[in-house]
């Protein structure tokens, strides 16, 4: 992927993409389609939603590539568009309230040794309410700050911080990491 990133960042490809060259725009798409889809899939509820986010993101990238001035990495610019589109998709789907009873969602547990039942991390992440999952992914994996997340979500910084903490409390419990203190 790094090679593709380098290629996508090359001045020639960017200049051609800005001029509307279809091959250059496809080069950008091929360079970033997997990381954009991965981000969208971790945030959205279904693969179909994530594919739609991928499509919307690149439609926007193709329309707005002329506005990218090279301040910051190209991936950072694309990632912000993708995150906004994924969050818009959550809002459009009227995401579940963050306080919804988590017990309503059943995810199979994995047997660990003879005594502990643990949920696998991927399943635990999937089980989180949409907003909490989005905050965890955007903050802990993609590296957005709470200020940036709050801005994209139209919420406060405190909201982002508390969602992250609550998500980790849940993950810790589901992953069987709790210890008596």
């Amino acid at each position: 992927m790094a090679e593709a990133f380098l290629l996508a960042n090359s001045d020639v490809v960017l200049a051609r993409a800005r001029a509307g060259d279809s091959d250059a725009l496809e080069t950008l798409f091929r360079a970033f389609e997997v990381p954009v889809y991965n981000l969208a899939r971790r945030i959205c509820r279904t693969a179909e939603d994530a594919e739609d986010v991928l499509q919307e993101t690149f439609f926007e990238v193709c329309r707005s590539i002329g506005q990218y001035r090279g301040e910051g990495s190209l991936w950072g610019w694309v990632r912000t568009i993708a995150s906004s589109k994924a969050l818009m998709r959550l809002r459009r789907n009227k995401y579940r309230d963050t306080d919804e009873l988590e017990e309503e969602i059943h995810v199979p547990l994995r047997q660990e040794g003879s005594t502990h039942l643990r949920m696998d991390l991927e399943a635990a992440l999937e089980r989180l309410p949409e907003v909490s999952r989005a905050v965890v992914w955007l903050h802990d994996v993609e590296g957005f700050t709470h200020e940036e997340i709050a801005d994209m979500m139209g919420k406060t910084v405190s909201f982002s911080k508390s969602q992250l903490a609550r998500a980790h409390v849940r993950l810790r419990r589901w992953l069987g990491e709790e210890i008596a203190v």
Partner: protein
Amino acid sequence: MTHLSMEDLTLLRESLPAAGAAAAREHLAACPACQAELERLHQRVARLRALPTVAPARDRWPEVRRRVVAERRRRQYRWLGVGGFAAAASITLALLVNNMSHPQPVSASTEDISRAMDRSHSLEQALDTYDPDSRVTDGVTAQAAGELEDRIAVIDNQLESAQMLDAAARNNALLRLWRERVGLMDALVDVHITHASNVGL
């Protein structure tokens, strides 16, 4: 002894000091339980970052490209202040009027050209009514439609260039181009309508 909350622990990872961070760090330095909790948090985040990357099952580029091309065409039309048909047609009509007032030995009749223009106009209206941009399209359909739209755009450019030709060559070129445009528009309508009937729309 009150241990650090999860919010305290998550904020301790931030590079910018949060309010109360000094007291939290002081507690952390003296509390093995909170140190263990912070370590588990670090490990959990590392595992999140190491989750396998998921890739899309379908190629979405053809659909993105089709929408980009369609939007580009719309922008061009808006910039011209008229529809694609009208832009190309106005040039042709002006040329035909000129031909009639200054008769030339031409082989293609103005009636033939007008008929081809009318047919192209009808097909374009049918496509506008169907409104393909608002519909879900599979990759194969999107790719086929995109290629046809590209070729129609090329024909429109050639229609504009045709005005540079002398009268005889011009009428022949106009008839050929308008007929080609009709063929491509016909195919474009077919691609969308066939797709719609295949998926039961």
